[in-house]
Structures are given as structure tokens and as C-alpha cells.
């Protein structure tokens, strides 16, 4: 029982991170109908930025944890959103209106490029940073097993809930949100109404990158290690989360992320931990077979 509670906490934490990244997939898919293959690598870049920023702050003598966290979050979000913009500008915008396959290939090229660029400039080794946020609450002890809620886990959940609320407001209440949803429905009509469609798409990529940046910082705080390969598997899992929740649906991405996180945590605890990635992947296949529109998604209508 205590173990299950612990896995529930771990799974929710992991799921919040997957959900944040999945929102990036789902927003981009919603607006241009394509998967952003480089999204996992954007997350990886942000994790590297946060490692550099934490190390820099430590060498400057900043010892206040909240100050360091806020600074690193802002720095990482700023630089990573430029990466998101650059990915759209180089790999997607020149190919708008091209064949179906071309943007997919250029995006996978971008993913390969980012991975190897980081490997060459930052080194191929795993980078560990000293723990930023230590300690936590001991919730209960039963049968010699103590359920532990680390501060970093609490931070992840709180930040994610806050961002969910902020993004829901942004998409449903602001003028940018209306433009974004209008582009999702009909890009041509939206442009005729005087809305800069290219700008809206760029901003969508940047917003996705910002959420990935937050996820990158939070994961760095939580695990304390990064390497250039982390974007690949996390990218596939976050995509699975987006598909499970219904790709194109904003709350669906979060729900999918939490479900994937919980499944992974419980699978690791009770079944074979070395096959946890296989479990996620099996879910992707099963969802695609039986409910391709996901849990909260609308069925796809093919237009000619």
C-alpha cells in the first residue's frame, strides 16, 4: 500500500513532465497538422541550458534556491524559445505547401542536427549537477516503508498546475488564443481576416518550446543529470501521451502525460523495469489500433 502511494507520487511527477512536453506536440499538431520531431531535442537543449545556468549561478555565489530557480527558468525559457522559433523557421516554414513527406524529413534532419550539435559542443558525457533542491516530507511509514514526497516533486506538480491554468487562460481568453484556434480551424480564412498566420505558427512553436524548457529545468532539478540523448526517448513518450490524450487536444495532452507517467511508475515497481519503454510503446500501438483519436480528441475528418 505504501509502495503504491509512493509510485503514485512518482508517477504523477513524471506524468507532469511528460504532459508539459506533450502540450508542445499537441499545439503544433493542432495548428499545422504535423508532428514536430525536433521537440524532444528542444527539451534536451533546455536541460543543457539549465545545467550551464545552475553551474554559472553557483560559481557566482548565488546561494538562494528560489532565486536560482527563477533565474534559471527565465534564462532557459528565453533561449529555448529562440530554438523553437529557429526550428519552425528553418525546417517547417520553407516547406509549407510542399509534399507530405518533405517537412517530416526536414524535421527529423533537424532532430539529428540538434542532437549531434549538442554532443559536439557540450560533450558526449553525462553531466551531473549538485542537488539544487534537497529534502522533502515523510508522509507516512507502514511496514518499514516510508512514503517520501521530495520538494522537487512538489515543485514539478505545482509549476505544472500553474502553467496549465495560465495556458488555459491564454488559449481561451486572449486575442492570441483566438488567433491560434482560428488558424487550427482554417488557415486560409484566418489569413483573409487579416491575421498573420506565419507569426501565429511561429509563436505556437515558441510556446511549445517554452513548456519544454520548463520541463527541462524541472527534470534537471529532479534527476540532476543530463546527456545529449535524453530527448529521444522522452520525446517518444511525450508523443505517446499526446496521442493517448487525443492529439490536438490541450487537456488531453496533460491527461495522457499523467496516465503515461503513472503506467511507467507502476510498471517499474511491480513488473520489469528494464521493459518500461516497451510498455509505453505498446500503449501507443494499442491506442492507435482501437482509438486513434485518443481519449479526449475529436475523430479526424479527411478533407479533399
Amino acid at each position, binding site marked *: 500500500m505504501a509502495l503504491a502511494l509512493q509510485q503514485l507520487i512518482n508517477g504523477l511527477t513524471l506524468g507532469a513532465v511528460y504532459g508539459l512536453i506533450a502540450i508542445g506536440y499537441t499545439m503544433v499538431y493542432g495548428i499545422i497538422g504535423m508532428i514536430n520531431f525536433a521537440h524532444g531535442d528542444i527539451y534536451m537543449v533546455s536541460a543543457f541550458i539549465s545545467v550551464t545556468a545552475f553551474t554559472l549561478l553557483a560559481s557566482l555565489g548565488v546561494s538562494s534556491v528560489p532565486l536560482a530557480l527563477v533565474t534559471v527558468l527565465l534564462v532557459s525559457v528565453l*533561449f529555448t524559445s529562440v530554438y523553437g522559433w529557429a526550428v519552425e523557421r528553418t525546417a517547417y516554414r520553407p516547406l509549407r505547401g510542399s509534399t507530405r513527406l518533405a517537412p517530416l524529413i*526536414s524535421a527529423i534532419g533537424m532532430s539529428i542536427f540538434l542532437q549531434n550539435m549538442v554532443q559536439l559542443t557540450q560533450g558526449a558525457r553525462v553531466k551531473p549537477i549538485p542537488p539544487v533542491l534537497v529534502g522533502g516530507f515523510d508522509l507516512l511509514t507502514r511496514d518499514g516503508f516510508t512514503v517520501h514526497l521530495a520538494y522537487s516533486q512538489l515543485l514539478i506538480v505545482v509549476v505544472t498546475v500553474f502553467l496549465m491554468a495560465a495556458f488555459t487562460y491564454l488559449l481561451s481568453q486572449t486575442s492570441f488564443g483566438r488567433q491560434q484556434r482560428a488558424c487550427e480551424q482554417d488557415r486560409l480564412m484566418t489569413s483573409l481576416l487579416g491575421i498573420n498566420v506565419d507569426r501565429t505558427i511561429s509563436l505556437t512553436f515558441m510556446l511549445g518550446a517554452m513548456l519544454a524548457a520548463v520541463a527541462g529545468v524541472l527534470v534537471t532539478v529532479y534527476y540532476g543529470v543530463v546527456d545529449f540523448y535524453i530527448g529521444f526517448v522522452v520525446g517518444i513518450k511525450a508523443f505517446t501521451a499526446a496521442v493517448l490524450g487525443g492529439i490536438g487536444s490541450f487537456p488531453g495532452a496533460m491527461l495522457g502525460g499523467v496516465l503515461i507517467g503513472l503506467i511507467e511508475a507502476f510498471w517499474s515497481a511491480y513488473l520489469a523495469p528494464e*521493459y518500461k519503454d516497451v510498455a509505453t510503446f505498446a500503449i501507443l500501438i494499442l491506442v492507435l489500433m482501437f482509438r486513434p483519436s485518443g481519449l479526449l480528441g475529436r475523430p479526424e475528418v479527411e478533407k479533399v
Partner: protein
Amino acid sequence: MVVLAHQAPSARERCKDAGAVALIALLLGIPTLGLTTIDQGGTLHVATRWPTLAVFVALCFFGRLLARVAIDALQARARHRPAATLLRPGARHRLSLCLGWGCFGVALALPFVFSDNRYIVDTATTVLIYVMLGWGLNVVVGLAGLLDLGYVAFYAVGAYAYAVLATQFGWGFWQALPVAGGLAAGFGLLLGWPTLRLRGDYLAIVTLGFGEIVRIILVNWTALSGGPNGIASIPRPSFFGLPFKPGDDGATFAGFFGLDFSPLHRLIFLYYLILALAMLTNLFVSRLRRLPIGRAWEAMREDEIACKAMGMNVTNVKLSAFAIGAMLGGIAGVFFAARQGFISPESFTFNESAIILAIVVLGGMGSQLGVVLASLVLVLLPELGRDFAEYRMLLFGTAMILIMIWRPGGILSQRQPTLRHRAEGAAP
């Protein structure tokens, strides 16, 4: 007729444009090029590389400036000249046919010319493995227009099928070849069946995941695959039952033909074996393109909805392309295992899939000759120097983006339908 005057941008505008690019380059470069962390005695320290960053930003500024000037000049020239066609389709076809036969001739003669150079024959064998993989993936990506990002999984299935059958059940190379090919095709069907009914993007990410899953299973299922250590001492193929071993008693290749034993014999035999397999693949694929199924692939690549409207079963057409591609990958895998004598999951990472995809994309989707040229370039360039090998994947990624922007079909793209209703040039 209204002629719109085209005004060349002023020097100020050009500088502003290049300045914007340089600013973006600066923002992109600060966290990756400008700053890095190095491990000193267990703790990280920040190191700066401002000169490198400055060079990078300057390169972006002047590169953008020059590129804009060059593009504007080219466009201005193109406006004043009538569009010229370089080669008529017929002439182009003849040229590529000549080049193709030329390559084949060179490939046939190569072991005789370099019969004492182990390195060249060995490298040529590697090139041919990639040619075969490229032709196999070309069926899926180039002809059917399905993006397969986990092609290496089928390569791995073939390689491990042969390794297990040979080391644990004592099967020979020729017995295992069709079985492993069939097994890989079976995996292709298994994976394709749920996903091919959906949009193309899903297939891409599912195959990406599948490639990784196969690797994870190979690493963890120690009883079958030997785990990270792989499978060693896989039997090499024999020449119609004659092994390549020293000995004079007529039961070995050297003894049977009355030759002095040389380890090069096996190398040259392997070279001809993969050449034969690759040429068979080529023949098989180019024949398939003329069959109704091949025409269906190309039609589906161009317009899936139109194909559905014509009453084609799109899922089955996709599945057949996917399974045939997988089978060819599996056969190449069997050869790879037999040639290396040792396989481990290290050989089947995502990078390998990316290299094969790069070969198909750069060479030209649907073009058999393009795959040969791209494999030559992509395999031989890293051999030139270690520095290049380090930057190899970076360059592949960049090339994939640039080629898609510049020529979405690939350098030697062949988007023309293989069959035409009337002969070229005939009166309509």
C-alpha cells in the same frame, strides 16, 4: 501586360536582414557554443568560448549577406532568360542507364584490380551493404511515400535471426537467408497493420519507437541475444559447401580449386555475394515497379485520397511495400551477421536508421542510381579522416534539411511515373 518592376534591396536593407540573422545566431549560440560546462574533479565548471561564438556569428552575418546577394542575382538572371531544360526526359533516362551499367562494370572488376588490397574490398563491401539497405528502404520511402524511421530494426531482426539459427541450431547461410527475410517481413506486417491505416506521421513515430524497442529487447533478453555482449563466432558462409579454410584435401575452397590458401578469398567471395544480393534486389524492385502493385505504390504516394476513391485498398498496398522493404532489410542483415561474425545491439542504433534514410533522401527518393551515389559518398567520406567522422551525423542532419528545402524529391529524384500510357514523343 503589366510588368512589375523588381527593385533590388538597398545595402542598408541587406545589412539589416543579415544583422537579424546574426542576432538569432548569437542567441542560439550563447548556450551551446559560447558556454559549456567541463567536469573538473567531479564538479562542473563553466568554460567560455567567446572567440568561437564571435566567429560563428560573423560567419552567419556574412554568409547571409552573400547568400542573399547571390540568390537575388540568380533570380534576376532567371527572369531575363527563358527557362532552359537541361536534358529531355529520354536523354536523362539514357544517361542514368549508362551510368548505372558503368557502376555495375566497375563493381564487377573491382576485386580483380585491387585483388591484394584488403581495405578497398572491405570498404566496397560496406558500400554495397548500404546500397542494398538503401534500395530496400527506397521501396518504402521513395516508392510508397511512407516514412520509416526504424528501418534498422528489420536489419537487426535479419542479423539476429541468422545468428541464432546458425549458432544454436546449426543452420547454414543459405537455409537461414529466406527464413530471416520472411521473419523480417512478418515483423513489418505486424508493425504496419495497426499503423498503416492512419496518417503517415503516425507511422514515422511508431517506426522510430519500434527501432528503439527492438534495441532494448536485444539488450535485455540475454538468453536469446546475449545481451549487450552480442553473439560471437557466427559461422561464415561457405562457397557451395566449401569452407574458406587452410587445407589441401579438396574439402576447402582453396584445396578444391588447387589454389594457395589466402584470407582474401573469403573477402572477395563476400564482396561478390553482396553484389549479387544487391543486384537481385535492384532487379526485383525495378520489376515490381512495372507490376500493378508498383504502380499502385507510386499512385498512392502522389495522392492517397484519389487512390481510395478509385477503389484501391490503400492499407494492403502500403502493407505490401512495408513488408517488402522489411524483407530486403532482413536479408541485408543476414549478410551483415555472416560477414562480421559478431553482432551486438551497438550496430543497430537510431543513427544507423538515420544514415540509411539520409542515403535514400540525399540520393533521390525513388531513384536506384541516386542510392548508389549517396551510399558511395556517405560511406567513403568518413573514411577520409577522423575529423569528418565526428561531424558526420551533424552534416547528414543539415543536408537533410537543405535538400528538402532545395529539392524536396532528393538530388536525383525520380517522381516521374515508371510507366506511361504512350511511348515518349509519340503523337498523342
